[in-house]
């Protein structure tokens, strides 16, 4: 749910990174944080365990400049991917405007990818959203690993509605901004319909 303030001419949108544990959601945010000018970003807040696993969420506010005289801000969140944090994931999806699914390209994580995608559908539904209608992009991360599952195979299993799909190596930034941009575009187009 975006927030449009006509008085201060600002618009805020919420984008959530979803996906299996250790898939690279937090790494996406870290890369975006590193590569954004100080005046266009706020603090990166990470509520994490001692072993750097996301415990509740990561949060990064991004200021993308103006569209049609409105300051456009995106609030990026990641969910904790570990299965047992489901209650937290559900909370973070509240009021979401767009979702990025970060899949792990490793063979051994295929089941985890599918399980997490199912979980996304369920949790969106419980928040009153339908994945078929929500602005959405898919990212195949960890393309640098030897033995990564071929693109076509991942696409067949994980692409659900011909959403824009990107190959990524999050720590190096490959595909990171491209994925974000694809979903931001859909979110803004969605707003133009309202």
């Amino acid at each position, binding site marked *: *749910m*975006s*927030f*449009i*303030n*006509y*008085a*201060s001419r600002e*618009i*805020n949108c*919420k984008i959530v990174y979803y996906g299996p544990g250790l898939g690279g959601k937090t790494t996406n945010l870290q890369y975006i944080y590193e590569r*954004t*000018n100080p005046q*266009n970003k*706020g*603090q990166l*807040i990470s*509520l994490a365990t001692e072993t750097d696993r996301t415990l*509740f*969420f990561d*949060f990064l*506010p991004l200021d*993308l*400049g103006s*569209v*049609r*005289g*409105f300051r*456009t801000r995106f*609030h990026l969140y990641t969910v904790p991917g570990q299965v047992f944090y489901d*209650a*937290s994931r559900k*909370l*973070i999806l*509240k*009021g979401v405007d767009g979702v990025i699914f970060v899949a792990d390209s490793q063979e051994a994580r295929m089941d985890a990818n599918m399980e997490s995608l199912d979980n996304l559908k369920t949790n969106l539904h419980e928040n009153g959203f339908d994945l078929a209608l929500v602005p959405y992009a898919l990212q195949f991360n960890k393309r640098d690993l030897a033995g990564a599952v071929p693109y076509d195979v991942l696409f067949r299993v994980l692409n659900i509605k011909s959403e824009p799909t990107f190959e990524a190596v999050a720590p190096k930034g490959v595909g990171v*901004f491209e994925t974000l*941009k694809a979903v*931001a*575009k859909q979110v*803004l*187009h969605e*707003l*133009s*319909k*309202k």
Partner: protein
Amino acid sequence: MTMFGPNLVVYEEEFERINAVLARLWMDANAKIVFLVDKNGQQIAAKGDLEKVDATSLASLTAGNVAATDGLARLIGEKEFTILFHEGERDNIHISIVGQRLILVVIFDERSSLGLVRLRVRKAAAELEEVLTQMASKAAEEGQAPASPFAEITDEDIDALFTE
């Protein structure tokens, strides 16, 4: 109150009223900072010593805090906990829910007291609910809403956002 559209939209008139309520609360409660956030963590308005805090992070963490507490409430069969209070060595945070959808946060130190804050928050919350009702009825009257500023957005507009 559930008569809102999918998006929260604030216009000039209501924004001014909200700011006036927060300014009065800030004075009357002797607070350091007063701010209003929606449950999704978007800051709506604020008043006080804002240079000293990161308001955006404060908004997001407040919303996370409320969301987690709401989750706890439901777990034990409560509808919600309407007030949260965190006591620090110097500063304290008083968090309350307004109109089921907004979060009113007051940060105060020893120059004020929990009793005073509570009292003033109750009054401010009632006033804010009135503004919310007005916003909701405006949103309900279709045609009232100005055309979305994004109605004619182009791919070029969007691309321009990412060229840094």
